[in-house]
């Protein structure tokens, strides 16, 4: 008899404004997921307020945990490990997930697997296709913008990142200028489709010989353009503004990614993170990748682009197989980062 037991992981995610719990089988199948999103609450303040976020997490986490057990009928005996996001993110928010995960692991004598939130975003792509190495990931979200090279499974190396604002942060900031609700990414994407790139905003660091990004110059140029028009009483097209901004972002992201692909030949390019849901970015990278032979573009499924526990379960499965373990003193690490690729 050579029957292998399924590896079922209970995963927690609470790094920002979503409380999420999932049960994941063999790192590739979501058995159940329950997510409570606080977006409506933070819309009152125009952005995530950390203390409010932490308070919502503690209200929601047990309900989410209960949902996934009710839905699957699984018991703790069926589990192989508990995976949890321990960073990066908001410290108070992270602590709710970390505390809950440690308590459950202790109560049932289960191994605890600490997961980097960014590894989670990359592994959301696992729900589209198996990942083949070496691989390159473009990670774009409200908190992060980075290019991550993975020579093999469970190894993550940064080759470039934003020097100022994260990409999604820039979307939210210009969204506020346009009078849109937080988070603004989806609305800007829709507006952009009705407009044209007429403003020709700067493409920061596009020609520089590195893989870093910068979005603060673009953000300033955008704000200046709108303020100047306001002062002289000129009415600018919101659609054209959105289209111009989005085009600049997409140009920079794809330009840098293509350059990275030249230096690091890989089998797959993974597009992940909240901003990976942007339709223009998806279309552009699909087009560019189709021109390169032997390269497949893997996009995280739309429903796993934002923060969720399923992606933590997928990355947690890989870490678990590689023997990554946390003990009962595991702490939240708000500034957690992958290490840089050393040349």
């Amino acid at each position: 008899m050579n029957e292998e037991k399924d590896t079922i992981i209970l995963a927690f995610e609470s790094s920002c404004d979503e409380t999420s719990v999932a049960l994941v089988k063999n790192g590739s199948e979501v058995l159940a997921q329950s997510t409570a999103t606080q977006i409506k609450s933070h819309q009152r303040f125009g952005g995530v307020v950390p203390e409010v976020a932490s308070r919502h997490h503690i209200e929601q986490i047990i309900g989410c945990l209960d949902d996934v057990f009710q839905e699957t009928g699984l018991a703790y005996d069926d589990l192989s490990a508990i995976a949890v996001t321990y960073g990066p993110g908001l410290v108070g928010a992270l602590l709710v997930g970390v505390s809950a995960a440690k308590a459950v692991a202790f109560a049932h004598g289960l191994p605890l697997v600490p997961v980097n939130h960014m590894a989670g975003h990359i592994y959301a792509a696992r729900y589209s296709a198996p990942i083949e190495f070496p691989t390159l990931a473009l990670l774009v979200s409200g908190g992060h913008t980075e290019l991550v090279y993975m020579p093999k499974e469970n190894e993550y190396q940064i080759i470039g990142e934003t020097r100022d604002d994260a990409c999604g942060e820039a979307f939210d900031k210009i969204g506020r200028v346009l009078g849109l609700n937080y988070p603004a990414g989806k609305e800007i994407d829709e507006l952009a489709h009705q407009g044209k790139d007429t403003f020709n905003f700067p493409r920061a660091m596009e020609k520089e010989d590195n893989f870093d990004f910068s979005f603060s110059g673009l953000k300033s140029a955008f704000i200046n353009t709108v303020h100047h028009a306001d002062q002289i009483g000129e009415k600018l097209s919101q659609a054209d503004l959105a289209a111009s901004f989005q085009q600049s972002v997409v140009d920079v992201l794809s330009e840098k990614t293509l350059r990275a692909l030249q230096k690091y030949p890989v089998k797959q390019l993974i597009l992940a993170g909240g901003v990976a849901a942007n339709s223009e970015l998806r279309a552009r990278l699909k087009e560019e990748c189709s021109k390169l032979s032997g390269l497949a573009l893997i996009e995280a499924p739309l429903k796993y682009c934002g923060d969720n526990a399923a992606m933590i379960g997928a990355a947690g499965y890989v870490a678990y197989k590689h023997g990554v373990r946390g003990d009962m003193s595991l702490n939240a690490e708000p500034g957690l980062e992958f290490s840089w690729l050393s040349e």
Partner: protein
Amino acid sequence: MKTRDIFLFCEMYAWVYVKLIKEGSSVKKRTEHNMKILAIDTSNRPLSVALLEDQSLLAENTTTVSKNHSVALMPAISEIFEQSHLKPTEIDRVVVAKGPGSYTGLRIGVTTAKALAYSLDKELVGVSSLAVLAAAVHVDHETLLVPVFDARRDNVFAGGYVWDNDQLINALPDQHISFKDLCAQLVGKKVCFIGADLVKFKDELLELMAGQDYSFAPADSAIPRAFNLGLLGASEKPQSVSDFVPKYLRLTQAESQWLEKNPQGKEKHGPYVKKY
């Protein structure tokens, strides 16, 4: 007192206390199963966890050196289980200090308590962190025990407690209040203040309580003991594990500012959290 003396004193005190409680409760009919309780207090700087069986102490771990409750709490819990030769599944209830206190400290303790109670399918009870301090000070029935935590900007978290037939009764609700307004509520009462943070209000206290009948509890009573927490929570009714949240006693600044600008905001706004 030297540190060692304080420890000796605490031990002796705990023993007398257990004895008192046992004698006091011997009239009540004995439950067949001995209730085992895990008690957790991380509401302020000290960290205290205890295991109790039938109102006596099995093990307690109380420290004031933890810089980070997130790092120290679970190892401390794990240790008292080992010392007591108990498995997590053998407890009947989790009692947690529900606040007021440090927001982050409270969330670490309460999340841990909720997750343990839920995943072990045990009862959960929350007890005021201020009551835990009051429970350590035994005084006559006329004295109002007033535990105080600093809440910054001249404000405190405070409540009032009295002993009535070996029961600790909450006489003045736990509240977030200016120190001045607190003292105004204490006029004409026989008061015993508890808490290390009172030092910060020394000058104000001397002035506001001038001519009043007040005293201070011994210094060691400023440290919450999870044993006392467990005793207080032993007879309380269990609460809903998933709905349980800390008693912060204070809105976040962002929320109070928003409510100022949107007086009917909460009703109009609709649910803050959506599940999918």
